C-alpha cells in the first residue's frame, strides 16, 4: 500500500501533460479525486468479489490507473548489524488501455503512463535514497508477468531463469545493492481473496504479498561492500480509485514476528477518525483478515525534522491474538526525499510478540 508515492507519480505525469500544479495541492486526498485532465471512463475499479489471476497479476494492469511492486527487507550484515532495504516501482496511467490492445508504438514517444522507481538503504542511523522517472511504452521501463521482470533503466527485479529465486539490482549516489530473493512462491491474498478495502464506503485495491522472502546478497555503501542476509516482504497492489476524499495520510506496517507470524496493518487517517485493516498470517500460512474492530493503533513518540513531524513509536494491539506490541523506528531520519517526501524506515517490535519489520508514513510532510 503506497498511496502517497502514487500521488507523486500522478503529479509527474500531470506535469508531463502540462497541467497545473494545483492537483498536488489536494495532497493525499487528491488521489481519491479524478484529475480533470485524465479520462477516467475506461479505468477499471476493483470491487469485492474480484479475484487474483496468475501469472497475469505479476505484470502490469493497463486498465487500472495506479499500481506498484514494492519490496522491503530487514537484513543483517555479517557482523550482525541491522540494515534495511527498500525498492519500489510505480506505474501511473494517464489513460486506460485494454489488455487486448496493442501497446502504443514506441517511436511515437507515447505518454500513456509514467513510471517511477524508489530505492533506499537504511544503516547505522543513516538513510540513502534515490528516485528515477520514466515514460512507459518506450522500452527502458516496464514490467512483464512471465518471465517476471520489473525494470526502470538499470534498476531491475527479475526472476532468474530456471531457478526459484529473483534478483534485484539498483544503485544510487553512494549506495548499491545486488540481492537474491528466494521462497517466492508463498503468496498471501489480503482482504477478501485479494480485494483490500480502503474505506468503509467500499473503495479499495487488489493486494497480495510475498511475506516470507529469504534474501541474501551485497549492499555497497560509500565504496564498502557488505554481505547481507535476512527477511523480505514483497507487495503487489493495483487500483484506479481506492481512497475517498478527506483521507489525510497513511500509516502502514509489515512485521515479521519471532514466533513465525506475519502481520500487515494499515491505518488511513480521516477527518473524523481512521480506517484500520490488516492481515494476520499464522506460521503455517493461514491468513485472517483484520478490520477496524480488531486492531488498535496509536502513536506514542514523535520525531521532528525539516521535512515534518512523524510518529516513530507506536502501540499496536490485536486482542483476539493477545498481541500488544510497541513498534519503534531506530534513531535517524528516514524521509524519502523525492518530489513528495514520505517516511520509510525499518522498525523493531517489542512486547508480547517481538520481531522486526518496516513502517511507511505518508501525509506528514510540511
Amino acid at each position: 500500500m503506497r498511496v502517497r508515492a502514487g500521488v507523486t507519480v500522478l503529479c509527474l505525469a500531470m506535469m508531463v501533460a502540462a497541467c497545473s500544479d494545483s492537483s498536488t495541492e489536494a495532497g493525499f486526498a487528491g488521489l481519491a479525486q479524478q484529475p480533470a485532465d485524465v479520462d477516467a471512463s475506461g479505468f477499471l475499479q476493483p470491487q469485492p468479489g474480484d479475484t487474483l489471476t496468475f501469472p497475469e497479476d505479476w505484470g502490469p494492469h493497463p486498465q487500472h490507473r495506479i499500481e506498484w511492486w514494492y519490496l522491503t527487507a530487514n537484513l543483517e550484515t555479517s557482523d550482525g548489524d541491522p540494515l534495511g532495504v527498500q525498492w519500489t516501482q510505480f506505474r501511473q496511467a494517464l489513460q486506460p488501455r485494454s489488455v487486448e490492445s496493442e501497446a502504443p508504438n514506441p517511436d511515437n514517444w507515447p505518454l500513456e503512463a509514467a513510471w517511477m522507481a524508489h530505492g533506499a538503504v537504511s544503516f547505522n542511523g543513516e538513510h540513502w535514497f534515490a528516485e528515477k522517472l520514466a515514460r512507459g511504452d518506450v522500452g527502458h521501463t516496464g514490467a512483464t508477468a512471465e518471465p517476471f521482470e520489473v525494470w526502470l533503466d538499470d534498476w531491475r527485479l527479475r526472476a532468474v531463469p530456471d531457478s526459484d529465486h529473483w534478483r534485484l539490482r539498483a544503485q544510487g549516489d553512494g549506495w548499491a545493492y545486488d540481492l537474491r530473493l528466494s521462497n517466492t512462491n508463498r503468496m498471501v491474498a489480503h482482504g477478501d481473496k485479494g480485494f483490500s478495502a480502503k474505506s468503509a464506503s467500499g473503495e479499495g485495491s487488489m493486494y497480495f504479498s510475498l511475506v516470507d522472502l529469504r534474501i541474501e546478497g551485497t549492499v555497497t555503501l560509500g565504496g564498502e561492500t557488505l554481505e547481507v542476509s535476512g527477511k523480505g516482504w514483497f507487495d503487489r497492489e493495483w487500483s484506479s480509485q481506492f481512497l475517498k476524499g478527506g483521507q489525510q495520510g497513511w500509516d502502514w506496517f509489515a512485521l515479521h514476528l519471532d514466533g513465525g507470524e506475519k502481520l500487515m496493518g494499515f491505518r488511513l487517517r480521516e477527518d473524523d477518525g481512521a480506517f484500520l485493516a490488516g492481515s494476520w498470517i499464522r506460521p503455517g500460512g493461514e491468513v485472517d483478515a483484520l478490520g477496524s474492530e480488531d486492531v488498535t493503533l496509536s502513536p506514542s513518540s514523535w520525531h521532528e525534522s525539516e521535512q515534518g513531524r512523524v510518529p516513530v513509536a507506536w502501540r499496536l494491539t490485536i486482542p483476539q491474538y493477545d498481541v500488544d506490541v510497541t513498534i519503534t523506528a531506530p534513531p535517524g531520519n528516514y524521509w524519502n526525499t523525492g518530489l513528495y517526501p514520505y517516511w520509510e524506515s525499518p522498525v523493531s517490535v517489542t512486547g508480547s510478540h517481538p520481531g522486526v519489520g518496516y513502517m511507511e508514513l505518508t501525509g506528514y510532510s510540511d
Partner: protein
Amino acid sequence: MMLVGAFISHYRRHPFQLAALALMIVLATMLWAGVTVLTDQARNSLFQSEEAVAPRVHVVRTDGQPVGVAEFAALRMDGLCVAPWLEVQRPAPEGRVIGIDPLAMGCFGEATPGGKSGELDGTPFLDISEAKRLSREGYDSRLYLLAPNENAELPQGYALREFSLGPSTGELADSFLLNLDALSLLVLLITGLLVRSVHRLGIAQRQASFDLLYRFGVQRGRVRRLLALELVVLTSVCVLPGLWLGTQLAGVLGSGLGQALDSLFDVTLYAGSAEALPWQAAGVMVLLVLAVCLVDWLVPQRWRGALSSSRARLAAVLVVLAGLVVVALAPELARVFAGTALVFVGVGWLTPGVLAFLAQRLSDRASLDGAGPLTRWRHRELAVMFRQLALPVVALQFAMATVLAVQALVTTFESTFDDWLAQRLEAEFYLEVPPGADASLAADRLRRLEGIGPWHRVSRGEAGIVSESGGGDKTLPVDLFALAPISDLVAAWTLLASVDQPWQKLEQGGVMVNEQLARRRQLEPGDVLEVLVRDTVISVDVVAIYADYGRPAGEILMAGSALPEGFVARFESFSVNPGELAMAEIREQLAEVWNVTDVTVRDNASIRALASRVFGQTFLLTRAISLLTLVLAAAALLIMSWVFFTTRVWYFRLLGIWGLPAKAIRSQLRRLSVILTVAVTLAALPLGIWLTWVLVARINPLAFGWSLPMALYPGFWLELGLVAVVTGLVVAHLMRRQLVHRASGQQVKI
C-alpha cells in the same frame, strides 16, 4: 508649522521650480527603470536564445545509422544518462520546436536541457510526444540523444559528438551584456547629475528665503532636515509615476524584440516583464536622488569654495591624467572601471571651467580684433552660462559621450558579429562526416559533381606548438584545422595581419594562426613555427593571423594537402554551396558514398538569420537606451536653460532698452544657445571616443581575453551635432517666449 509654511509658500510663488524638480525626478526614474527593464530583457533574451542553440554532447552510432527510441532505451537500461531531443523544423512563421522528455532529464542535474522549470510551453521546448506528432505531419525532424557531458562511458558501437543548432554566442553575448551593464551605470551617473543640477538651481533661488529664516532665528540644521524631508517626500511621490512610465516605455521598445523572437520560435521566447514594476530600480533612484542632492552637507564649506580654485583645477587635471594612466595600464577590470570613473569625475569638474575660459578668451580676442560690443557681450554671456549651467552642461556632455560610445560599440559589435557569422557559417550548408565514414570518398564525389558551388572539407585534430624557450621543450597544445580545397568560401575571413597573397601561401604549406595564439606567442606574419603533429615536427611559415572573435583556444589552420603523415582527424565536416544543384541531391550522393541512410545537413542560412535577428533586436534595444539618455539630457538642458534665462531676462531686456532691434536680440539668443549646445557636443567628442576605446580595447580584453576592433563613425558625430543645433534652437525659442512673456507688460516687443 511656520517653517513648513515658509517652504510651501516658496513653491506657491514659484510652482515651476517644484514642477521642474519633480519632472526631472520622474524623467530620471523613467530612464533608469526603462534601462533596468530593457537590460534585463536583453539579458533574458540572450540567455534563452543561447539555451536553444547552445552546443551539446550527443550519442551517435559508430556505424553511421541514426539513433532512435531503441537506442535510447538500450542506453538507459545500460545505466547511461541520455535524454531524447527531437528537433522539428516547420516553415516560417511557425518555426522550430524541440521535443524533450522531462522524465528522462533527472540524471542531468544542473545541466538539464531546456531549462530547469519543468514547464513545457513550446518556447521552444515541448513534450517529445507532441513534437513527434508534428514531425508525423511531414516536417523535417531529427532525433538526438543528449548526454550530460563528454565523459560518459559508452558501450561499444556508440560515440559522443558535439552538436549545436548554431554557433555558440556565449562569449560574444557575455561581452555585450557587460558593456550593457557599464552603460547602465553611466545612465545612472547622468541621471544623478541632471537631478542634482535642477535641485541646486532651486536651492540657489531659495537662498534668499533661507537667509530670511536664519535671521528669524531658525537653526540651519532644522532647515536642512526639512529640506531633506521635502526631498524624500517629493522623490517618493515622483518615483512611482517614473517607474510606471519607464516600464511602459521598456514594454513599447521591447515589444519589437518579443515579436522577432515570436517569429523565430512560434511562441514568445521572452514574455516582457512590463507588468512588474522594477522596485529595485525605485530604491536605487531614491538613494541616488538623496545622495546627489544632499552630498553638499557632507562636504565642508571651505572645500566647496576650493573646488573652483586654480589649485582645484590642477587637481582635476591630475585626476584625469591618473584615470587615463590607470585605464591604460590596469591589469584588472575593477581598476579600469575605477580609472574610467576618475576620468569622468575630472572631465566633469574641468569642462564648465574650460568652456567658460575659452569663451572669455574669445571675448578678449574680439576686443583686440576690434569686434563689435555685441560679439564681446555674447562671448562673455556664454562664459557666464557655462559656469551657471555647469551641471546640465556636464550631464549633456556625458550623455553625448555615452551615446557616441554606445553607437560605436553597437555598430562594431554588429559588424564583428556579421564577420563572426560569416567565418563560422561561410557556406550555405554544413554537414558532419558520420563516425566511421571516409571523408575522402565524399570529397572525391563532390569534386566530380558538375554544377556544385564552392565547398571545402574541414578536418579537425590536435597539434602542439613547440617552444624551446625557458630551458626545456614546452609544447603548447592547439587545435589544428585543415582545409581542402582552399575555396572561395574563406575569402571573406577577416585577417588581422597577413603576408601578400595569404591564401595562396597557405596552399603552398604556410599556416594561419588565430588571434589568441598570435597574442600569446607574439606571432606575426613571416614568423616560423615548429608544429608537432603526432610524432612529427614540421617547420611552417605563419602567413596570416585571423580574427577568432573570442575563442580562447589556440588554433592553427593549414591546407589539407600540407598535412603531415599520421595526422588523425577527430572530427570532419564539409561546408558546401550547392550552386546549380539541389542540396537534397548532394545529400543523397553523400549518403550513398558513406552507405548510410541519413546525413545531417545544417542549413546555415536559417541559423544565420536566426542569430542575426536575435542580436539585431538586442542592438536595437541598446540604441534605444542611449537615445533615451540623450533625449533626457537634452530635455534637462532645455529646462535648465529656461530656468536660467528666467534669472537673466532683465539682462536681455536691457538689450532692447538700449535700442537693439528685436530681430537682432533673437539672433543673439539663437547664437548663444546653439553655440552652447554645439560646444558641449564638441566637448563630448573626445570623451566619447575615449570611452569607446575603453570599452572595446580595455574592458573587453580584460573581461574575455579578446578585443574588438576600434572603429569611429564621423557620420554619427554629424548627426549628434544636428541634434545639438536643434536643441539650441528650441532653447532659443523658449528663451524668446520667456522674454516676450516678461516684456509684454512693458511694451517691449521681442
